[in-house]
């Protein structure tokens, strides 16, 4: 005798084999299938025939997969656009931070060091000063790393686990960036390092939050 639950388990397996793997989407399709089977049974069909009709009406796994794939591609594209928009906004903010906060601090520290060591303050040549400012403003790009990381999390290349695992390497990388991109002393290195590392930690936290939310959604759908 036909067993509906077995039939549905087999149907789900076929769907997974064809590439529809998201549990939430599968649960929703299964609910639809059961609703349609109930409807056909109420109309007088046997459960087996009702199930066959419902599966046929729902559509074959291949065409469903292509529709879900289109949806996933659209989602990825949206995330990339959002990442780009957020990246540009953040770039402007960071530019302002570097120019109005970090650069004066670096110049003041440089003057203080010169004074402390008994040298006369550095006399900047316009060309040299512009080169220094350009290098300094290049740090803006370093602040874009979290945006890049979160966009990669959203499109499925990175996840919370990988980001947490990479923390120790990122601390070293951020310290190196702090040393290379600023004046060669510890204070500006730390001024650079702290926001970079904080942004990384925020990225890891956001990735973790997204993962928890996704798990919660899947658990609610089960």
């Amino acid at each position, binding site marked *: 005798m036909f067993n509906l639950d077995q039939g549905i388990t087999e149907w789900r397996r076929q769907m997974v084999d064809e590439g529809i793997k998201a549990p939430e*989407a599968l*649960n*929703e*399709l299964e*609910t*639809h299938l*059961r*609703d*349609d089977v109930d409807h056909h049974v109420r109309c007088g069909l046997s459960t087996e025939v009702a199930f066959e009709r419902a599966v046929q*009406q*729902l*559509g074959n796994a291949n*065409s*469903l997969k292509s*529709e*879900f794939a*289109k*949806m996933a591609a*659209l*989602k990825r594209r*949206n995330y990339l656009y959002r990442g780009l928009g957020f990246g540009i906004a953040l770039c402007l903010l960071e530019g302002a931070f570097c120019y109005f906060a970090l650069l004066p601090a670096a110049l003041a520290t440089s003057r203080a060091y010169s004074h402390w060591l008994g040298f006369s303050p550095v006399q900047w040549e316009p060309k040299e000063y512009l080169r220094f400012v350009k290098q300094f403003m290049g740090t803006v790009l370093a602040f874009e790393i979290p945006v890049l990381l979160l966009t990669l999390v959203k499109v499925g290349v990175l996840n919370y686990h990988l980001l947490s695992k990479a923390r120790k390497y990122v601390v070293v990388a951020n310290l190196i960036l702090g040393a290379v991109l600023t004046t060669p002393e510890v204070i500006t290195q730390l001024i650079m390092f702290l926001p970079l590392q904080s942004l990384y930690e925020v990225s890891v936290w956001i990735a973790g939050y997204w993962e928890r939310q996704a798990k919660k959604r899947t658990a*609610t*759908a*089960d």
Partner: protein
Amino acid sequence: MYNAAMIEKELVAASTEPLILSLLSKGESYGYELIQEVKRLSADEIKWTDGMLYPVLHRMEDRGWIKSRWVEIENGRKRKYYSIKKDGHQALKKKREQWTALNSVFSGLWKEQYV
């Protein structure tokens, strides 16, 4: 009873979002119920492949037009209910204007031809 030719699939595809938004503007609903309602209202002229509705619903949710929640119905079974959001109402208003404009163009044209 008047029996119009089956509506072409391109037109069905174009009308899917406004249909869903219009139905959800009346109240919360779920995929199967939406399909049955469209079948009933169109006297079976609009035929959706049932499974294709869900990627559309997910896309609309992603755009922020609709939201969803899982509700336990019976025997531990759960069903995903959709409802319209503020942005969805705005999108519906825009789509309604577009379809009304098209409708009035065709009505005017065909009225002239048949009088």
